[in-house]
């Protein structure tokens, strides 16, 4: 692997240089409490926040947009025309992605780029550039027990904080090309930087409120399928708004809808994010619902996030803490899992 060091004062120049590679998105403060990835113009480079806690919307939205036109159609001719936007659009340069979100993207890849790859997702993902950044956890984070606090692939560049700058790990050919083109920005990595990195990791690992790993959580969850208290108590609080699934970096359910235009002939077929917390998610023809109660839908999310994964990591949950942080009902996902685990 190739390492270079970026001094703190050069970060602005670095961001400006990144704009040559596509549309630059980076985390900025969007409200008193929340951050979000937004498009960065030359004037906004100063607003980029490097030590944000978590973004409101997950990075998957750049490759799997919340609302995407798949086809335009002509209903009289019964013809559909592929929407080329995903294939012709500018590449997305996503700056400042945390390790857990990069793992989240890899989980998305495992579902969307499998033996029957989704053409729209793949087109966007293949040209996109991911630039990660190291972070320190807050009380909502539990990526360490999900083994998502560190990544060694899935990014083009990864910035790890050291005392007076960032050590950049190069993770792909695209990353090499960016470094080659902007070589004058960097300095050599020293022994001190290497030590700083280790110190940062030690500091980080001490900041987590949970430790060990939760690989066995899937079995604990299954054994507590009939937990006397937790499911009823927590799902009773749930508003069924679907915020947890919208902000989740690995949720990928979608619905397909046709929107006709007023001329009665043309229109668009779009896919929009769906949520398993909605009543319609398990509904089939004839009115039967496979998840009729709020409790069953609530439980389904816990199972899907913790027990269904076969690829990349041991769970589809990466421990980013978004579903707790953004829950309007104050349901504490992390605390509930700890409770199911017996308080550990």
């Amino acid at each position, binding site marked *: 692997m190739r390492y270079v060091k970026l001094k703190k004062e050069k970060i602005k120049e670095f961001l400006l240089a990144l704009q040559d590679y596509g549309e630059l998105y980076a985390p900025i403060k969007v409200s008193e409490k929340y951050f979000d990835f937004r498009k960065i113009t030359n004037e906004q480079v100063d607003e980029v926040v490097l030590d944000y806690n978590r973004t409101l919307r997950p990075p998957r939205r750049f490759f799997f947009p919340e609302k995407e036109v*798949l*086809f335009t*159609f*002509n*209903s009289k001719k*019964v*013809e*559909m025309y*592929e929407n080329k936007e995903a294939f012709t659009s500018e590449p997305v340069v996503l700056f400042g992605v945390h390790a857990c979100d990069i793992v989240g993207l890899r989980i998305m890849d495992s*579902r*969307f780029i*499998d*033996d*029957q*790859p*989704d*053409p729209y997702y793949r087109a966007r993902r293949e040209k996109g550039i991911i630039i990660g950044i190291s972070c320190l956890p807050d009380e909502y984070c539990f990526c360490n027990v999900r083994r998502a606090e560190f990544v060694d692939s899935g990014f083009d560049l990864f910035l790890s904080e050291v005392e007076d700058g960032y050590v950049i790990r190069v993770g792909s050919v695209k990353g090499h090309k960016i470094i080659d083109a902007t070589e004058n920005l960097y300095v050599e990595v020293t022994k001190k930087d290497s030590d700083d990195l280790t110190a940062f990791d030690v500091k980080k690992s001490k900041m987590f409120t949970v430790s060990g790993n939760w690989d066995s959580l*899937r*079995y604990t*969850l*299954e054994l507590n*399928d009939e937990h006397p208290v937790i499911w009823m108590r927590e799902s009773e609080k749930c508003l069924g708004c679907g915020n947890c699934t919208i902000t989740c970096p690995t949720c*990928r*359910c*979608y*619905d*397909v*809808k*046709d929107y*006709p235009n007023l001329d009665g002939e043309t*229109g668009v*077929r779009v*896919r929009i994010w*769906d949520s*398993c917390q909605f009543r319609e*998610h*398990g*509904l*089939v*023809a*004839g009115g*039967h619902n*496979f*998840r009729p109660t709020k409790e*069953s839908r609530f439980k389904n999310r816990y*199972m*899907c996030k913790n*027990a*269904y994964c*076969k690829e990349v990591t041991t769970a589809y949950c990466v421990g980013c803490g978004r579903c707790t942080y953004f829950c309007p009902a104050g349901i504490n996902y992390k605390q509930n899992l700890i409770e199911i685990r017996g308080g550990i």
Partner: protein
Amino acid sequence: MTEELHRRYIPDGQDNLYDTHKCRVLRVYKQTEMDKVFLFRFIDQEVGKNWKFKPGQFVEVSLPGIGEVPISICSSAMRIGFFQLCIRKAGRVTTKIHELKPGDIVGIRGPYGNGFPMEKFFGRNLLLVAAGLGMAPLRSVFLYAIDNRWRFGDITIINSAKYENELLFARELEAMRDIAEAENIQIIQTVTREDSPNRLKGRASEHLDKVMIDPKNSTVALCGPPRMYKSMFEKLVEMNYDPRRIFVTLERRMKCGIGKCGHCNLGNSTSWKYACIDGPVFDYYDIISTPGMLE
């Protein structure tokens, strides 16, 4: 739990997975008040020539402007060039499909799903149990078995519905009676909620004792509402049918058909399935090891 059953089916010849092929409605047959059978043919003959499916697979029927619905194919997989879909008027899209007339065009993509592992059925007796709309996918299996009659042992089909006028393909099965007798095919038709002069009364599971075939060397294919499966399983296992050879098909709200949209996602840590690519046909052990399948 065989490799073949879980082999993921990949349709080829499509640039965009979500793109459809145009099909023309050739005939519309009214089955019951709510169900119609549509006969489709691909407009592009090249596509039609190469388009094959397995019994139990489904297609996504697309009406631009209205939406898409997953519908299982009900014609014989041996007869190439056209296919039939039995569609119940249940929702927005199917109501619109019911308005189609011969000559109208729809978009079709698929076939999707694993389908019944028919090669596993060869050389064995076959018991088919359908309840309500479940007759549609099982008709595909039934016709396939008739077209390959020499590959199968004795065949019994139980067709059940709530009311006499909801019994799907009843007249077709009736018309087969003479041939069926000559070919060792037993046809049982039953209605659960009314007394009908020429039908048996009661649920399909209540008529299992009338089935002529030998349970030992049999395969069973079930299709109906999830509630029926539970009672059938108990009965069938009790009657010494081999659990490994009991297959069911499931229904979910599949939006994509290729394991992306997440609506048919079910299971637990050891058995995690997408009904559209790992199913919709599952065997008995899949069903008992995967919670949520029958709920």
